[in-house]
């Protein structure tokens, strides 16, 4: 038995930054998997999905939270699924659910998951993301794959309490997450 042990390290050191009107938190301990529909298996996937989640797969550009899992439509033939817990557990569940209709790849460590909340959360995105993240164009349940400061991101608008605030889930690649963090903290309300 080896005497050595490995300790997990959060990509951004469990970042938690609060300012008036905004808060940014690195969410860790959340498994994330990419589920890609196999060629010609869209119907089988939809059936398997409905069976598992009691709802149809989310349409492109949207996300749904059901049974404590958030399913993000990240492409026409792909969803990302996230839930609290170890990646192995989620992978096992998904590989079982979609064994005949989709391929599943663990992406838990490939992405940094950031929760951007607050009444001025939208101000950050106005500076960094070219898509329209306003209430009208990007209501709760919306999702988009885009770029911020040349870095790929997935943005999901989620429910937030208190209701007057907003909550955006930002997924970005682990290797460039510090660039994204730097960009966010260089934007209002974190920096005027």
């Amino acid at each position: 038995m080896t005497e050595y042990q490995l300790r997990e390290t959060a990509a951004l050191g469990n970042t938690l930054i609060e300012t008036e009107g905004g808060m940014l938190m690195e969410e860790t301990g959340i498994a994330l998997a990419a589920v890609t529909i196999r060629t010609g298996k869209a119907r089988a996937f939809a059936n398997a999905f409905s069976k598992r989640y009691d709802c149809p797969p989310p349409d492109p550009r949207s996300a749904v939270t059901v049974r404590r899992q958030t399913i993000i439509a990240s492409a026409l033939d792909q969803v990302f699924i996230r839930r609290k817990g170890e990646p192995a557990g989620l992978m096992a569940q998904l590989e079982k659910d979609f064994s005949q209709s989709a391929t599943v790849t663990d992406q838990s460590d490939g992405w940094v998951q950031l929760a951007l909340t607050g009444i001025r959360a939208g101000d950050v995105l106005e500076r960094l993301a070219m898509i329209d993240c306003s209430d009208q164009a990007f209501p709760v349940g919306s999702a988009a794959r885009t770029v911020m400061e040349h870095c790929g991101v997935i943005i999901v608008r989620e429910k937030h309490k208190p209701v007057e605030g907003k909550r955006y889930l930002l997924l970005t690649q682990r290797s460039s997450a510090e660039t994204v963090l730097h960009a966010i903290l260089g934007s209002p309300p974190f920096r005027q």
Partner: protein
Amino acid sequence: MDADFRLKGGLINRRKPLDFSFNGAGLSGYAGDTLASALLANGRHFVGRSFKYHRPRGILSAGVEEPNALVTIGTGAMADPNIRATVAELYDGMVARSQNHLGSLEWDLLSVNDAFSPLFGAGFYYKTFMWPAAFWEKLYEPMIRRAAGLGALSGQDDPSRYDKGYRHCDLLVIGSGPAGLMAALTAGRAGLRVILAEQDFIMGGRLNAERERIDGMPGAEWAAKACAELTAMDNVMMMPRTTIYGAYDHGVYGALERITDHLNDGEDGDGGDQPRQILWRIYSRRAVLAAGSIERPIAFGHNDRPGIMLAGSVREYANRYAVAAGRRVIVFTNNNDGWRTAHDLRSRGVEVAALIDTRSDIDLPAPAGVRVIQGSAITDTKGRTRVRSITLMSGEELACDSVAVSGGWSPTVHLTCHHRGRPKWDASIAGFIPAGEIPPGMDVIGAAAGKMATSEALQGGITAGTSAARDLGGKTVKMAMPDCEDRAFGIDPVWHIPSSRARAWVDFQNDVTTKDIRQSHLEGFRSVEHLKRYTTLGMATDQGKTANIPGLAVMAEISGKSMDEVGTTIFRPPYTPVPIGAFAGRGRGPDFMPTRIPPSHRWAEERGAVFVETGLWLRAQWYPQPGETHWRESVDREVIATRSSVGICDVSTLGKIDIKGADAGEFVNRVYANGFAKLPVGKVRYGLMLRDDGFVMDDGTTARMAENHFIMTTTTANAGGVYRHLEYCRQCLWPELDVALISATDQSAQFAVAGPNSRRLLEKIVDDGVDLSNAAFPFMACGAITICGGVEARLFRISFSGELAYELAVPARFGDALARVLMQAGEEFGVTPYGTEALNVMRIEKGHATANELNGQTSAHHLGMGRMLSPNKDFIGRIMAHRPELTRGDGIRLVGLKPVDPAKMLSAGAHFLEADAPSRASHDLGWMSSVAYSPILNSSIGLGFVKNGYERMNSTVRAVDFMRGTDIEVEITSPHFIDPEGRRLHD
């Protein structure tokens, strides 16, 4: 406090006096002033020198069109040249100075140029200073540039911060005059998302400059009320101090918002931490251009003296800024608007010495006490630094200290032309109006569309707002047309006064006179584009906003063409100057591009690693130890330690692509040139990927983790390109294949563990049951294992260094810890971290190709891998790879190279020549692609491509490096300098 020229009223805040300086003289103004209005209030008209002749110049206008009053604002690094004083919002402590003079503004030594003006006509530099030719670049051009110019940059880094952003709206309203406000109100009440952008610091446009009433209240008050309503709407965004400078495709507009330019933003300034300016990209579904119009001058003799201004601007200074342009003003006009200026000046108590109209029989009410002269014109003026008198056609001379000139108004059509729209001439207003290909989705209203009456502007706003609401799903609202005063617009265009014998300026900024236009015509430069280039009419910071139309009209007159026939030059973005800093935004210094770091970056930093950019990645290049003073010491040590015991290197940056699906094997087999169909599960294979044209695109190893699961690695810098290529193959070439791809580069941290003790090191951290023996886990084996008590990992027995080596991958969150554990566990072996330099040395020693060799110009045959091209299958690039030129036996081949004299150092980029061949391209035998110093061989070594290289083994050629000036004899060898049999790999 009040200076001599300050009137009562206006929109300035007299409770907030502001101190500022101009050329070192302390002056004062009020909040709400521009620098120009404050200077005029202090009696300062003379604020600059002209571009070419260095003639005294004064403030001409009150807006963005200003050609003369360009000043430098700020000091030190904050000094900002070429700022139009007419739009520079005054702040307390502003330091402004004039520019383009040698000596003081008053005594500019370069004003001697004016005496030589006959020599400096249009295009003089095309005809003079021709001899001797060598003097042009060294003497003449620098001299001319020094003498003719605008402001100078500080020469220091710009300390200001700039930002960029993206805004979206249903309707973008450009301009907040009566038309823009009405459009915004209509669309806002209908529930549309509206952005109202105004370049001025207060909204209202010309309503702030006029005395007319709307709905029974002064226009400025009506505008303020409308703005208050708009500000209260959640669906409306007000953007003052914002210039829409460009109309781009798909409803995208460029906007520059000035955030702190109106604040004293020095080191301890009022701007705080805010960016100076923000460059917005505005995405609009529809746009309304309500940019108004710009007044133009009339060209008469010596019409450029300080104190001669545009009449509408004189009116604006009086009404908005409560400033009299002079004590005795003469109004000179060819249209009704000049009369309005005379009325307003009189009503504010300013003496109007005469109202001169070029037209005859004009039946308009004359201002009380003003002498009206019809059917006449100004032919000349006098006064050095300020106009003193004018001369009429009759020869009569009239004293004055200011002349208000109106040659009519030109609709501000610039943004309508950004999609190559060509405006058309409207004789009824003597101006060009929008026509042709205006940006899709744009409505043009108000004066910008040639509708000069206030009622037309307001109605245009209602119509455009209603139309947008209807088309974009807004509510239906009934808008009441406000009551307003309208004045008839009448003009009889007069562009210049032919009876003037003196020089008459058309373009003040570029010192272009009517004579220059005649000269241009005479010499055949008659097209407007030629006219512009030959005379410089319409160039520089103002882009001819006041000069273009008069200049074109003079050309039309000379050439006997209509204005429509002459046309205009193309108006392009930006509408007004945008600082380069604003275009750069945040993208300066380290923020120029994203940085990617591997999971062990902090650990490497702690060890003092020196980093190198590889694509966007930062990779440890070497790890200096105490006492090492040169990078070679560190790299040599790392190489020797790895080859003698064990070293570790972070290879997380290599691209990793997860390939899954029932057809994954077939897919990999098609994209690689060598066979993969029969690769067993648990095995890795080196793969060569070709482009369509048969040249090598990339290489890497691909592991078969399961029957339908492959992990492909790519070179670090090529990861994105390879992934894109694979997606193209999957989606476009072979959509029938059941295969899914996803990038897994960031998912895992991967370390190379290399050297004779690598196995022993790994055995210390793998979990029980993981057998790393040669038999159980031979060269090119791979598999899923667990380490350190259950952490899932993948192990690959592959080697880039040529040693017994492994690559160990764990989920990225364990990457930092794994680096530390490998160092800890390897302590007994003297484990050494090595960086990309040592990696490079070892791969050259082993003869492994990398980006230097796979540079897009080499084929498999060139690389000595021709036999890898499978004859038993189809693959990308198969046909083209077998072109005769790529496969010819005497073509270039990858070989090893050593200096004959071991003391010599090879250099990459050197070209090979025969010993007795002349150093010419026609004798080129190839090039050196990679070099390194091998601490194992104690020699400089290299890889390179040599024609007929295999036949030249053990012979010598010259390696000639013209860049570094070296010419040395080198021996051609096998590229495998170390362990050519590969025994170490299989140990």
